[in-house]
């Protein structure tokens, strides 16, 4: 993991003191709310429906056990005992008071954390595939580049007042596990013919009102040019992005209105001036950062783990959990474990302070003290020995964290919705709970296999419903909550925007509608090996539409 040096420590400390002073000026009436709002947003502090909300950055979704424990302490000391993990690998606290926030930030700084630029019209948390550094199919470790981008983008003087927010994602494997196609800039790690790492650069992805997939503007960018190229893109966007209409201010609109080729030309023209200047990354600087992410002291193990097979054969619940929540690791004998924060009928992505502490302890006992946050609002232990899986699972069962539903139908991504959020039109969490309860039978869930279900409470699409296999958008019709369904979206390297099926369903019918969709899939699939998205692509929208509107 990256560790702060004296410069990093000084920086976050100065940032905390700056914000403390800004809060004091606000409370004393020396700053109006209009002036204070962009300042507090750049420190991640929103005003929501019931209270303030503080969004803390978890850079590229990586946490040490010490940091996770600190988040638990903050939840307990300053909040209501829980936090919410987000689709951008951050954590949100829903009840801080304004005067406590500088102290919260100071407590975070003490463990090398911050809330810098988690909101505002600036470059936000750069996200990564949560399996960076450990995935069996990895091309290169995205965390290295995320850390380089994080530092460069922190309080960048030129890019702190952009037309709109700016989100960058990096994925390190041939599979896109960071939803790069839906980001303002998506970076896909690859290697050239000589094995040198670089990026395919995509720009202009986004959801919200106008969902658009990112387009490639450069097939291969050598790693040393990473920052200069990003600077060129941001400089073009800062100058030319629309500022007349907040719904047209993202870079996706600029790319569409300019045209991909012309936009790429503008970027390359700017980049030509700066590519060999101050932002060119020396090899030893990349190595210096890479050293922070050196592999932990793995044991030399056999990949075969006979006792695991015996344990799986002897315990159906454990077997199901391994099937859904455990993935292949690049090191023999190790595994990647997803800790689901989607208990059946529970609030997706929420974790209590006690659960955070339990996971921190498990990361220490069954790993190297590291935890990841996934964009599906779950946690992940990246380095578990196969021989420890059973003991880990038993501990998770005791902590209520062993739901065997990673990537399954109840692994629902839901935004906080109208229960918490000022922007929402409808509640999302109760819908997630209703669907989750309907599919709570573990056998049935395993039978259905992998399918993504995302629920957004408004058109801002914070739950990424456009790129879900089954997407749900909550809308307000004449004062009542209705839910519109889209099908066939995908967030991976075969990204797609879902198709609207038809008229929205009311809150009593939406869970049944999802069940109907799943039933059609089960009836039409060519065996258990054809996942939902493949069936959808083969048979199209029509069979689903017919059943949905015949039955309802």
């Amino acid at each position, binding site marked *: 993991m990256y560790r702060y040096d004296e410069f990093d420590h*000084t920086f976050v400390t100065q940032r905390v003191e700056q914000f403390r*002073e800004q809060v004091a000026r606000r409370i004393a009436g020396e700053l109006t709310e209009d002036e204070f709002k962009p300042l507090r947003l750049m420190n991640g502090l929103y005003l929501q429906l019931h209270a303030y909300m503080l969004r803390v950055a978890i850079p590229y979704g990586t946490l040490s056990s010490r940091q996770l424990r600190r988040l638990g302490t903050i939840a307990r000391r300053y909040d209501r005992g829980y936090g919410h993990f987000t689709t951008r690998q951050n954590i949100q606290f829903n009840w801080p008071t304004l005067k406590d926030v500088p102290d919260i930030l100071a407590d975070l700084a003490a463990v090398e954390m911050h809330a810098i630029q988690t909101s505002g019209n600036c470059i936000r948390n750069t996200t990564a595939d949560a399996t960076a550094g450990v995935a069996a199919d990895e091309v290169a470790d995205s965390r290295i580049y995320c850390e380089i981008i994080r530092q460069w983008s922190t309080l960048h003087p*030129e890019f*702190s007042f*952009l037309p709109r927010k700016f989100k960058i994602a990096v994925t390190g494997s041939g599979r896109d596990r960071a939803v790069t196609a839906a980001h303002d800039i998506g970076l896909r790690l690859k290697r050239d013919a000589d094995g040198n790492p670089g990026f395919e650069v995509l720009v202009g992805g986004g959801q919200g009102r106008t969902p658009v997939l990112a387009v490639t503007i450069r097939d291969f960018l050598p790693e040393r040019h990473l920052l200069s190229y990003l600077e060129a893109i941001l400089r073009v966007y800062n100058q030319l992005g629309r500022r007349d209409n907040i719904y047209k201010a993202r870079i996706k609109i600029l790319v569409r209105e300019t045209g991909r080729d012309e936009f790429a030309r503008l970027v390359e023209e700017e980049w030509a001036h700066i590519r060999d200047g101050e932002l060119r990354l*020396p090899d030893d600087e990349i190595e210096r950062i890479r050293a922070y992410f050196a592999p932990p002291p793995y044991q030399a193990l056999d990949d075969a783990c006979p006792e695991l097979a015996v344990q799986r054969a002897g315990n159906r619940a454990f077997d199901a959990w391994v099937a859904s929540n455990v993935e292949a690791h690049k090191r023999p004998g190790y595994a990647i474990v997803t800790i689901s924060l989607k208990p059946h009928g529970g609030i997706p992505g929420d974790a209590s302070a006690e659960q955070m502490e339990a996971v921190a302890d498990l990361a220490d006992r069954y790993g190297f003290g590291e935890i990841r946050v996934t964009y599906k609002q779950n946690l992940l232990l990246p380095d578990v020995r196969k021989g420890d899986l059973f003991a880990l699972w038993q501990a998770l069962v005791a902590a209520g964290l062993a739901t065997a539903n990673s990537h399954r139908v109840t692994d629902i991504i839901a935004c906080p919705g109208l229960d918490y959020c000022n922007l929402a039109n409808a509640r999302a969490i109760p819908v997630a709970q209703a669907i989750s309860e309907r599919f709570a039978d573990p056998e049935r869930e395993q039978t259905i296999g992998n399918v993504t279900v995302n629920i957004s409470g408004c058109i801002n699409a914070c739950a990424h419903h456009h790129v879900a296999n089954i997407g749900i958008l909550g809308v307000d019709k004449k004062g009542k909550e209705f839910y519109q369904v889209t099908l066939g979206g995908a967030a991976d390297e075969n990204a797609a925007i879902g198709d609207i099926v038809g008229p929205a369903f009311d809150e009593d019918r939406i869970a049944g509608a999802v069940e109907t969709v799943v039933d059609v899939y089960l009836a039409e699939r060519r065996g258990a090996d054809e996942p939902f998205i493949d069936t959808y692509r083969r048979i199209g929208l029509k069979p689903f539409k017919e059943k949905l509107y015949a039955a309802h």
Partner: protein
Amino acid sequence: MPLIKNGARLQDPWFAAATEEELDRSGPMLVPLALWQEHRDRLVDRVGPIGIRLASHESPAAIADDLDRFDLVALEFPKFTDGRAFSYARLLRERHGFTGEIRAIGHVLRDQIAFLLRCGFDAFDLDERAAAGWQAATGAFTAWYQPAADADAPIPARRRYAVPARTSVSVIRSDPVQPPAPEPASCAANWAY
């Protein structure tokens, strides 16, 4: 509005022309882009300093070829959220080599001053509150992560060349009190790293 330049309050010697009739005045004159473009032939012959005023949608590329005629470029912030001029200022300094005054006019917050300085602004039309907060605004951070138009070594360069963080701030271009840290010898091309 108080004009701050190089950290000190000044009387503004510049006259901001708005109409063709006013172009006949003598003394330092600040001219909006449209007037410059329309009356350029007449203005290039003028005796006395000329400044150009750009609205936030007017890129300095429009006057890049004439930059050596200007002692002042004034960049407008119609709202403090309109951050285009941060890029314009950097381009003026780093792309076009402009060494005259770059002034921020319009609505800027005290909390943007450090960013403005780093992007190459050296003069500011500020409201009283912002002017009063100058010291705090420029003193909040002693090192930054990325290169910009300012002369300070960013953090990656300080790490590489073991330049310690300052104990106080000197981001002002011609500040006589705090001499800048000595520049490491052979780092011109890789200043950031």
